């Protein structure tokens, strides 16, 4: 009998162009996504060396990182403008398809790939962005690369990669009501740390993962990199197939059914062995809030901010102390007592239609707290239009949220959407690093529902009690 294999091994083996002992493998890349920030130097390199893009047809570019999310027709920031114009010029010169700022397909690169059906099970996908792991939700091997590698893939459609080790993160049982995919991935990183995935590709398995929608799976895989893993994926199943049916870049009719069979056969075989395995029980997970300066520094909403003295060793104590100081928090205070000034619902982690819909259900009939400025930034132009068709924008606007155009926005604050120094933001993004949302800005990562509830209360609150308390 054939040895059982993981999906990771199956995809890997299908993409080896060249292998040699003691060297990385040369791997073929099926889809290369490009954006304005990490590509200019790569195209410049090609030009300098008189090289071309080998497969423009397997390359797709968009503008997301520093596009403005209001008043799109005037880009005030000269440097951002140059970067966008440079991408446009490069795409024209090298024949790469581009969804520029005014294009109906524009959006965050990790939102539009799946939306257009470019992302498919079994593909190898790269992008000069660490959250490329998002596409793993479809059972693709997807990882972030640096600009030199972007140039390399443009020129050769391949990449040198050391075969990764495999790590099974098994989530047993079911998530409770009000507990989302975001809480799940934060809890995983909180439990196992920000580097437990380093050197591995994670496969998420178990009942709670199977139960997730594709949007939820994308949220989980998106944050694999925050656990140190370059890629995280989920074996394809019927949920995956139904999501992809009818998407623009997948075939239809019989051809689709045939493809769907192939996709299913990629799933990890019964009895396949991983290099490492960890488990977590979904039932024990509560809505999460990060209190510190990396995504592993998170606690259940019912808990108190940690006290440095309780940490196991001196290094940890120092780290907690430094994080508390940056965040302006006292060890031991209840996280629900912390007031916020900003709410950001958006980013490649949580800006899909399903995210916005769930958040709007919390918001409906309420008003944003007077001390809070809240913005919703849809992940793509298409998410925005669909939400508007459903009246989701009206719910947010009536509550006092700003409703913006698609882009990365306040996730990394490269455009004008910045959290001022010392102010606090409940954010549905993926990184709470120092200065991420603006110099001196304080970021707390939460789910869209938790962010919506915090916007209304003006402080963190347990979304599971929110409905009960406010509707009475």
């Amino acid at each position: 009998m054939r040895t059982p294999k993981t999906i990771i091994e199956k995809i890997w083996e299908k993409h080896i162009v060249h292998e040699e002992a003691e060297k990385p493998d040369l791997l073929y890349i099926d889809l290369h996504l490009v954006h304005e920030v990490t590509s200019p130097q790569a195209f410049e390199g090609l030009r300098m060396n008189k090289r071309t893009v080998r497969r423009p047809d397997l390359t797709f570019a968009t503008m997301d990182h520093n596009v403005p999310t209001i008043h799109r027709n005037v880009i005030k920031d000269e440097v951002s403008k140059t970067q966008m114009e440079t991408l446009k010029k490069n795409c024209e010169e090298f024949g790469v398809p581009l969804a520029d700022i005014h294009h109906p397909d524009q959006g965050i690169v990790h939102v539009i790939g799946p939306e257009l059906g470019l992302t498919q099970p079994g593909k190898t996908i790269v992008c000069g962005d660490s959250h490329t792991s998002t596409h793993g939700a479809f059972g693709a091997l997807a990882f972030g690369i640096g600009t030199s590698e972007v140039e390399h893939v443009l020129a050769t459609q391949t990449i040198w990669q050391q075969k990764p080790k495999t790590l099974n993160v098994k989530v047993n049982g079911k998530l409770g009501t009000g507990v989302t995919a975001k809480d799940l991935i934060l809890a995983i990183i909180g439990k196992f740390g920000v580097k437990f995935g380093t050197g591995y590709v994670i496969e998420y398995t178990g009942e709670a993962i199977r139960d997730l929608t594709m949007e939820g799976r994308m949220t989980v895989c998106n944050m694999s990199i925050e656990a140190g893993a370059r890629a995280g994926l989920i074996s394809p199943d019927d949920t995956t197939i139904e999501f992809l049916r009818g998407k623009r870049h997948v075939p239809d009719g019989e051809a689709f059914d045939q493809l769907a069979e192939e996709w299913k056969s990629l799933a990890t075989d019964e009895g396949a062995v991983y290099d490492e395995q960890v488990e977590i029980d979904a039932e024990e997970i509560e809505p999460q809030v990060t209190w510190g300066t990396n995504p592993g520094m998170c606690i259940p909403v019912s808990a108190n901010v940690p006290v440095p003295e309780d940490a196991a060793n001196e290094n940890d104590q120092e780290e907690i102390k430094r994080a508390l100081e940056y965040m302006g928090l006292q060890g031991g205070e209840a996280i629900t007592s912390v007031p916020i000034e900003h709410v950001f619902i958006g980013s490649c982690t949580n800006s899909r239609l399903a995210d916005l819909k769930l958040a709007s259900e919390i918001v409906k009939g309420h008003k944003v707290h007077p001390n809070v400025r809240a913005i919703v930034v849809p992940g793509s132009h298409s998410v925005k239009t669909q939400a508007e068709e459903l009246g989701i924008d009206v719910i947010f606007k009536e509550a006092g949220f700003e409703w913006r155009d698609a882009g990365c926005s306040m996730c990394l604050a490269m455009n004008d959407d910045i959290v001022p120094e010392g102010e606090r933001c409940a954010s549905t993004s993926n990184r709470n690093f120092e200065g991420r949302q603006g110099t001196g800005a304080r970021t707390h990562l939460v789910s869209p529902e938790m962010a919506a509830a915090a916007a209304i209360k003006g402080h963190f609150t347990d979304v599971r009690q929110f409905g009960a308390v406010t509707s009475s």
Partner: protein
Amino acid sequence: MEPIRKHEGLVYPLNRANVDTDQIIPKQFLKRISRQGFGQFVFYNWRFDSKGELREDFSLNQPKYEDTTILVAGENFGCGSSREHAPWALQDYGFRVIIAPSYADIFYNNCTKNGILPVKLTEAEVQTLIKNAEADKYYLTVDLEEKKVYDNQGFEASFDLDAYKREMLLNGWDDISVTLNYADQIAEFEKARA
């Protein structure tokens, strides 16, 4: 890319774990479209205050580390964003070697593609180097051919680096030219799948 075989230099100790690429180069500097000139922005939010004045209390600003070329830091160095501007900034500032107990994968790869040698030593060895460099001007020699790090006071440690990366760094080769030797194989692969 400049080859790196044996490098002797002044050590700068950064005793922090999980230093992310947002710290190495904050995003407001990512908008340039060339590879050069990022060194002035390295660790910007630590080196400068909100008015853009040099923070004297941040150690890298001290005169004793002025000519540093070797950065020694805590575990999981370079985590977070994949921005290659991080190694560009470090390299442009003058660093040729980084020593840490562990690195984030993407950052580690990005280093070797830009002529920076990322050395992995044990936590204990790293702590020794940090202590030495905090105490005084401290010089180390990093020998990539021998895969060894040593000073002239008896410290010696060896490290590992995969054969491919080592060869690339030793010769200063760029990946693409190497890969283009396999162009036929790539074409065959494409044909087989079409």
